[in-house]
């Protein structure tokens, strides 16, 4: 017998978990570990990342490379990409009762587009088709920490990551800090307006992961696992 599940606000049988935060905040690592954990406990899990659709990937890459993008086309292209993934990848498993883990969701668009000068209300309207997640974890961390992590892993800072298109500074490192600072302010603002669960991401991977698992338990308490579904047949 499938246990009764409290129905979430979005009305679909699945669960929508969102991981948001600056680059280098550790959210992707944590999202993957949560996915592993849920799978090991027999939940059906679907994992999706930002900006991975075949439809627009080429256009976005080409547009970036040749400097063809303005804040508006940048915003709309990412919205197209998200819509494509939402309609084809996120919605079906959500309707089929999966736990859908999103490494970044519409909030990434909200903060980036706002930092580039798009009107927040206009951007929010575009993404109105996307339901509110059951849980949004925001990995809060000082910009300095993400920069230190970048340097430590010897990853190069990309042009758009540093917000170089905004002309904030000619120096990549300086521009990065200013741009990421803007993003952080936007995230901190959304954390209040959109009821994020704020996670202090400056700690060890294990201690963050433990906190996440604790946070998720109530949400999954009566949620059916694969075993439930098989036994029900």
């Amino acid at each position, binding site marked *: 017998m499938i246990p009764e599940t409290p129905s979430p606000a979005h009305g679909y049988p699945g669960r929508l978990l969102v991981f948001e935060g600056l680059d280098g905040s550790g959210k992707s690592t944590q999202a993957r570990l949560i996915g592993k954990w849920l799978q090991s406990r027999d939940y059906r899990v679907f994992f999706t990342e930002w900006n991975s659709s075949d439809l627009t990937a080429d256009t976005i890459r080409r547009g970036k490379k040749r400097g063809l993008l303005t*804040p508006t086309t940048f915003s709309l292209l990412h919205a197209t990409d998200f819509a494509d993934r939402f309609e084809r990848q996120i919605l079906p498993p959500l309707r089929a009762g999966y736990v859908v883990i999103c490494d970044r969701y519409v909030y990434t668009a909200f903060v980036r587009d706002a930092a580039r000068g798009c009107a927040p209300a206009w951007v929010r309207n575009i993404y109105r088709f996307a339901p509110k997640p059951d849980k949004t974890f925001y990995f809060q961390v000082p910009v300095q920490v993400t920069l230190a992590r970048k340097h430590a892993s010897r990853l190069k800072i990309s042009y758009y990551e540093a917000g170089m298109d905004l002309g904030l500074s000619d120096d990549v490192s300086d521009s990065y800090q200013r741009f990421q600072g803007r993003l952080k302010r936007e995230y901190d603002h959304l954390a209040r307006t959109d009821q994020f669960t704020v996670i202090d991401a400056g700690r060890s991977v294990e201690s963050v992961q433990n906190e996440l698992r604790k946070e998720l338990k109530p949400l999954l308490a009566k949620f059916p696992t694969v075993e439930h579904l098989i036994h029900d047949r």
Partner: protein
Amino acid sequence: MTGRTYGTPLPGMPGEKLAGKLIVIEGADGSGRTTEVDQLKEWLEVQGHAVVDTGLRRSTLVSERIDEAKQGHTLAPTTMALFYAVDFADQLENKIVPALSAGSTVLADRYIYTLMARAVARGASREWARELYGFALVPDLVMFLNARPDILLHRAIMKYGALDYWESGMDLCLSPDRFDSFFLYQARLREEFTWMAKPYGFHFIDANRTPAAVHLDVKRIVAPLYNRAPEGAGRLLRRRANGGAPTETPAPRAASG
């Protein structure tokens, strides 16, 4: 032109009066739109106006990609609406606004109205579509070539020998029969255009007639924009005074609150 937008303007746009003029011709496939655009362009150029033409799916950024995606019939409704919005925004920023700033006449073979009608016909809300395209410039003139569905059908058959998948709205699954689907889909679009006519200040032109008759009407409507008195101008001025001029139209933004 005023440089006014329907809603929130884009970041980095001039937002002031632009020297050129923006003329839009709307209408379904088979309404004679493209023929009229060509004729109007010719007429304006003969009179010494620089004309830049534009239309849907002509941006350097994404037009090819949209074509490819449509071939596979893989686009879900929201995705398609947004993809077209990218195409429109790219042309607005890189083609339309620069041309208007330079004093050219921009002749648009379809504009946001078709895009909004298509999105709403596929389940989007009117508010969503209006807000999405709020950054579009309010044109100096919008003419809608209005043709009956049976005439559209006849012209499509004459021209292609068949009905186009998208123009028949086959992706909507209204009917497995393409002819039925065509009529159902065109009726939905018509409903949207009828609704838009007033807030967006459309001039309806009876397009059930010959291209020559349509062109005559179009010239009469366009001429006053350039302070010309064409044949039959007296009649036209009376029509404009009755509330046809787009500059007198309240911004739809205000209506949506």
